[in-house]
């Protein structure tokens, strides 16, 4: 009576996404998987559910190998999952969204549905009844008729859990269910998870919110770059150094001593609050369609200074940067050098000097060569400026000229990050928005990256740095803003780096919300 993954290995092209990972969930147990971005948590879910093929290993349910079965058969056998990015139809009602989780349990088919036979109707009524029950358990009954698109992301996640529960699963896999949930919603979710476990359902949880994880889990597995780093009871695991490293950034432990003085240096050069910020954001709220992902955020960016946005995955950092750059729908005001820019389309904001480097190097053109990428970014420069820019970049990123003719997608992660920064600089930005520049990079690159960002700041550019890797961010930052659940949870100077306990608390959303 267990769900087991045995030595699961998954490859995407040449990349080893999971390397012989084994994990086990018992009925009535809550097991969690934690790990940084790109550690393979979602891939593990996909492998268990049948959305990703195994290179080797096995998935067993009650001892029976199920990894040859198509995904929907596995669901029918009693596995169920939620998605990290909720997959919703914004037009459907909450009631319908939850109800759809129960459809596979229908015994009557098409004819019953078309003819509305008594049996079909009673089955439908049964599903409706269960839906109502789940709504009540989640304390969402008042929202039954609301459209999914109008709800905040936290509520949507909760609904997604309800949808999974509807299928009466024996094992339920929750992919970051607590990201973006308010405390009250988190409590409702915790209660729901505990109830499920007490009813004998096995729960496998992937979650960044460590407080949440430690509250509900019986067992914890730490994944790091596709491998199991360690496992055990939550209380024990969180004390192990490898966990802290994986969670706060790979060199947090070793760097903390060295980083503080450097950060303090920078802080001394540029005071935490500039008298006249270069960019001011007031009450910025970002939304995708109808889903709001961060709320009323104020942000000032000084010239030649670094503001670090910290927070767990899904806290709303990227959305805020997207909102500032014009790629994500938003409300609130954004002023650059006294000029309102919030009404402009993204490419106009780029011309004004707002330059965004999205996560995973989202500003480069993978199919085009390095030279073409740079030419595109430099196309507005006059001949003189172009020569100067080329010389500057040559000096800053010597690797890039060596690889100028290879397509960007063939570069290593570190080289791609350099290209992404080079392209951003080519646009002559005044404000640079960096989203998780360290994501997926080997720690060896961190020092280079740090030097580059320092050089950029030295040129008088204001930088907003969104990072999960707190240690890396804090080495550069003049000001640190910690975002949890789409809201500012702590606003402080770089000195917080010295106080790892407090940083961890704020980071995990345990710090009291910012006093307005």
């Amino acid at each position: 009576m267990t769900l087991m993954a045995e030595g699961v290995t998954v490859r995407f092209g040449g990349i080893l996404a999971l390397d012989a990972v084994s994990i086990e969930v018992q009925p009535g147990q809550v097991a969690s998987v934690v790990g940084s971005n790109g550690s393979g948590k979602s891939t593990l879910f996909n492998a268990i559910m049948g959305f990703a093929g195994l290179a080797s290993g096995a998935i067993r349910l009650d001892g029976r190998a199920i990894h040859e079965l198509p995904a929907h058969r596995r669901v029918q056998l009693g596995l169920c999952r939620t998605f990290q990015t909720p997959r919703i139809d914004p037009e459907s009602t909450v009631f319908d969204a939850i109800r759809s989780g129960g459809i596979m349990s229908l015994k009557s088919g098409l004819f019953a549905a078309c003819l509305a036979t008594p049996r079909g109707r009673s089955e439908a009524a049964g599903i409706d009844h269960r839906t109502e029950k789940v709504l009540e358990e989640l304390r969402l009954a008042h929202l039954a008729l609301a459209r999914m698109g109008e709800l905040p992301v936290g509520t949507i996640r909760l609904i997604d859990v309800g949808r999974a529960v509807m299928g009466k699963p024996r094992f339920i896999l929750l992919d970051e269910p607590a990201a973006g949930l308010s405390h009250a919603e988190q409590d409702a979710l915790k209660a729901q998870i505990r109830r499920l476990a007490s009813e004998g359902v096995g729960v496998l949880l992937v979650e960044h919110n460590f407080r949440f994880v430690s509250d509900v889990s019986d067992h914890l597995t730490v994944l790091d770059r596709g491998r199991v780093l360690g496992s055990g009871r939550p209380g024990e695991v969180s004390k192990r150094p490898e966990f802290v490293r994986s969670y706060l950034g790979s060199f947090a432990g070793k760097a903390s001593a060295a980083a503080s003085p450097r950060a303090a240096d920078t802080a001394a050069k540029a005071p935490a609050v500039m008298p006249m910020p270069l960019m001011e954001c007031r009450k910025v709220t970002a939304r995708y369609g109808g889903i709001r992902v961060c709320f009323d955020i104020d942000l000032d960016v000084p010239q030649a200074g670094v503001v670090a946005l910290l927070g767990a995955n899904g806290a709303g950092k990227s959305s805020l940067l997207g909102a500032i750059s014009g790629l994500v729908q938003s409300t609130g005001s954004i002023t650059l050098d006294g000029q309102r820019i919030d009404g402009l389309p993204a490419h106009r904001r780029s011309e004004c000097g707002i330059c965004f480097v999205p996560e995973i190097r989202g500003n480069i053109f993978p199919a085009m060569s390095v030279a073409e990428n740079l030419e595109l970014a430099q196309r507005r420069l006059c001949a003189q400026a172009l020569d100067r820019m080329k010389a500057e970049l040559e000096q800053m990123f010597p690797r890039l000229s060596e690889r100028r003719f290879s397509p960007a997608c063939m570069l290593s992660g570190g080289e791609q990050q350099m290209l992404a920064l080079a392209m951003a600089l080519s646009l002559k930005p005044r404000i640079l928005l960096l989203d998780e520049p360290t994501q997926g990079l080997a720690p060896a690159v961190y020092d280079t990256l740090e030097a580059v960002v320092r050089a950029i700041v030295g040129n008088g550019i204001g930088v907003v740095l969104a990072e999960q890797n707190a240690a890396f961010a804090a080495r550069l930052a003049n000001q640190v803003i910690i975002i949890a659940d789409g809201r500012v949870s702590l606003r402080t100077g770089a000195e917080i780096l010295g106080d790892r306990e407090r940083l961890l608390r704020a980071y995990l959303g345990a710090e009291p919300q910012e006093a307005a």
Partner: protein
Amino acid sequence: MELAEFVVRGALLGVTYGLIACPIALVYVTSGTVDLAIGAYVVLAAAVSFAAPGSVGMLLAICVAMVAASVVGVLSSLLTRRYQGDKLIVILASFGFAMMVESFVLTFFGKDPFVRQSGAAPVEFLGMPIARQSVISATIGLVLAASVYVLLHRTMLGREMRASADNARGAAIAGIPVRRVQLATFILAGALAGIAGVMTLHGAGLIFSSAVPLTITSLGGAIMFGLNRPLHAFAGGVVIGIVESLSAGFAPSQLSTLLPFAFIFAVLAFKAMHGTEMAGGRA
């Protein structure tokens, strides 16, 4: 030898399809939609060039095709701006526009075929007589395909187009006005279709109702090898021409029209079964 002749004739015939398939793919990569009026621009250009002889007429014809294409470009922009996502509406709208153009051509340029023959003697190629015009058309077709390659890979506009296709978000970040680039692609597609029209006028000729069959065959050719590569689409068009020719040359006449359709259908079904579809199309 016989086989070779049918292949060569098919390739010559396929150049026209290729020249229509190529802009279909161009529009698709930059704006994710399909302009079903592309065949209508071909007919429109042929009609204008037929009515206004000489090189001025040809230029005028190509310009008219570009103007018509820009109408669909603007429509596409309007429709996607107001209602993000649904590319099907744009495709249907372009079909509506194609109906308008066909009717316009019939009303103002008449029902008769648009053909202008040179009367030049055929040339010998590997011992087979081939119309001089076919050679010229094939040359123009290859030159245009090469120009599309050069445009995409050696000019800034081309890079902006590829960038918009490769990573629209990144393009916006780099300050590329993606919508304007998309409109430019529509107009460029119109120009290519216009040239195809003028070419066909001097070759096989066409009539007001040729637009839809041309579009469907070319779209089939374009989609076979991946709609997101303009040059692959061109090759797809040429392959369709060859299949048509072989089918006309060897199959019983009852089957000769059916086989090219069955060929495209089979390629699409094969791709879908082997999961290469994802790489082939984004829609």
